């Protein structure tokens, strides 16, 4: 199996052909979504989940911490955005800032409690904390609105210089979300392919060795946890705008499990782009399969089970297998 670590030649430029394809797809989606029988809002949803999934994979695929409670940070971001609009000010950047900040703080706190856990104990504790947040969201009714959540969250206008865009227009909102997703993707790609990303993968493969060559494993884990919570918070803020509401459902174990499924099915364990493929596949399954049969989740679940059994490296792994020539060794670098 080809793994994430198997990308030796990577230089500094993120503008590889998959990135080009991704950005092109992101930029042109409104032009072809409707003609192929889908709808505009789907684009927004997919872009937000791609953002969430890519941030999550830094934790899941790169450093190998298998969180099953990551929906919590998406939810915290969504609530923070809504509460900011309702209690502080109707402001786009203020709201998104609050979303990122709240999720970052929560992530930093939980990360500090979790970063010395290993293996399945990490997974168990992450579920525990996820449930804690979910439960609190339901029960702190006077703040969060309980099971119904916060309703009627506004989409503030986007102001750039003298220009003002009304984000209540779904097309304008899509461009806004797509721009953020594209930008964050570039940053995450750079991070994953910089020394930082290599250290994360080294820690995943052998924590003991990493600490004995001088890496502060705890700190890397904590930083990664916090970072991926921050990205989830940003996605959550956008999600609150998209839904114009924030509700506890996104924080449930079910949702946290779904993001794990998406990332894994797509091939997040072997490729940076795995999560993108996974999100696309999930939403296509939901909308296309879901249009044909009400039992689409059954079929998606079965596909997932089969995938874990025979092809845990996911769709990206399949593609790599097809693409890779027998001798794919890169030319050695650094020899004068």
């Amino acid at each position, binding site marked *: 199996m080809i793994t994430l670590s198997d990308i030796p030649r990577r230089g500094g430029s993120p503008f590889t052909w998959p990135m080009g394809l991704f950005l092109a797809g992101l930029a042109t989606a409104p032009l072809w979504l409707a003609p192929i029988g889908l709808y505009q809002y789907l684009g927004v949803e997919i872009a937000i989940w791609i953002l969430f999934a890519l941030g999550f994979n830094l934790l899941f695929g790169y450093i190998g911490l298998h969180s099953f409670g990551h929906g919590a940070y998406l939810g915290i971001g969504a609530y923070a955005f809504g509460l900011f609009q309702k209690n502080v000010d109707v402001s786009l950047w203020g709201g998104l800032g609050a979303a990122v900040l709240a999720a970052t703080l929560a992530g930093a706190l939980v990360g500090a409690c979790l970063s010395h856990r290993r*293996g*399945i104990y990490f997974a*168990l*504790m992450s579920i525990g904390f996820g449930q*804690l947040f979910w439960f609190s969201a339901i029960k702190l009714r006077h703040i969060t609105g309980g099971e119904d959540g916060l309703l009627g969250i506004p989409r503030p206008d986007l102001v750039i210089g003298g220009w003002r865009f009304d984000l209540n227009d779904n097309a304008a909102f899509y461009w806004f979300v797509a721009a953020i997703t594209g930008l964050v993707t570039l940053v995450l790609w750079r991070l994953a392919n910089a020394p930082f990303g290599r250290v994360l993968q080294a820690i995943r493969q052998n924590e003991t060795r990493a600490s004995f060559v001088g890496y502060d494993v705890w700190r890397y884990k904590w930083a990664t946890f916090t970072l991926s919570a921050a990205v989830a918070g940003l996605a959550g803020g956008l999600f609150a705008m998209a839904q114009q509401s924030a509700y506890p459902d996104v924080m449930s174990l079910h949702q946290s499990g779904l993001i*794990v*499924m998406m990332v894994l099915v797509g091939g997040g364990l072997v490729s940076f782009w795995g999560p993108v493929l996974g999100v696309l596949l999930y939403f296509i399954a939901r909308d296309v399969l879901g249009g044909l049969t009400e039992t689409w989740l059954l079929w998606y679940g079965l596909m*997932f089970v089969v995938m874990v*059994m*025979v092809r845990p490296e996911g769709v990206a792994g399949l593609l790599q297998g097809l693409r890779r020539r027998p001798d794919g060794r890169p030319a050695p670098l650094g020899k004068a």
Partner: protein
Amino acid sequence: MLALLPHIVNGLTLGLLFALIALGFMLIVGVMEVINLAHGSLFTLGAYLALSTIGADWFAGTGFGSWWLGLPVAARYVVALALGPLLAGAAGLLLELCLRPTYGKAPLYGLLLTFGAALVIEEVIRLVWGTGEQHLPIPAGIDGAFLLGGLIFSTYKFFAAGFSIVAILGVWLFLERTPYGAIIKAGAHDSEMVRALGYDLSKLRLLVFGFGAALAGLAGVIMAPIWGLRPHLGIDVVIPAFLIIVIGGVGSFWGAVIAAILVGLAVGVTGAYAPAWSLLSMYVLLVLVLGFRSRGLLGRKSALEN
């Protein structure tokens, strides 16, 4: 203190029920080091199968069906109590076969596979039995309620708690006092040893998984009259089950039982004073216990940490 007593009794009963819920989960995680996230779904499946057995869903129109429905509820209930778990156990066997490719890989894969299986089972339940809430009938003898210290206790809850004690002791005796139990426990520590003794490890795993799934189903049938029946019940079951295992310590039988009772007491007593927050107390307990003992109350080192 005296005012607290009924709540403590209530908490203890609840704790025993939690122990019953966690029993099958514990067996599978202890012996096979697989976190069976489908545990809750197997639990629900067992309960629904019992419902269909009592209600003669699939053969009501036949002569046998009308004879069956003529029998008293008690008789049908006893049969359902056996049949539900057996069929859930059969589903467990199937799941174990699916799990085989994940052995020897990171524990994550077992977790993921059973998560997917949980989703599938839940959808199947929705498909077969519909999404509405249903009610499992129970014999008149164990129905009803009585008053104790100003609180109403349901007779059935006490029956269920008693049943839990029997089940816990039964499983414990099976593990401790029978040769099968000895082999299963050996398999938990040293699979090489089991092979060297001439036992077929894959058969052992199959049986353990089937047995664990059957216990899940059994717990489902017992709990259904208390919690009601809905397709997404699984999640309400698997979460406490695994909180209990983590608090008690993976691989420790009595650790889990103690943890279950602690969780029951925490939920029961919190329920008396802040009902809205009673379920949260489980998580607080988890964070507290694991804050001090990273392997839970009586846990030992296991491969799951890798």
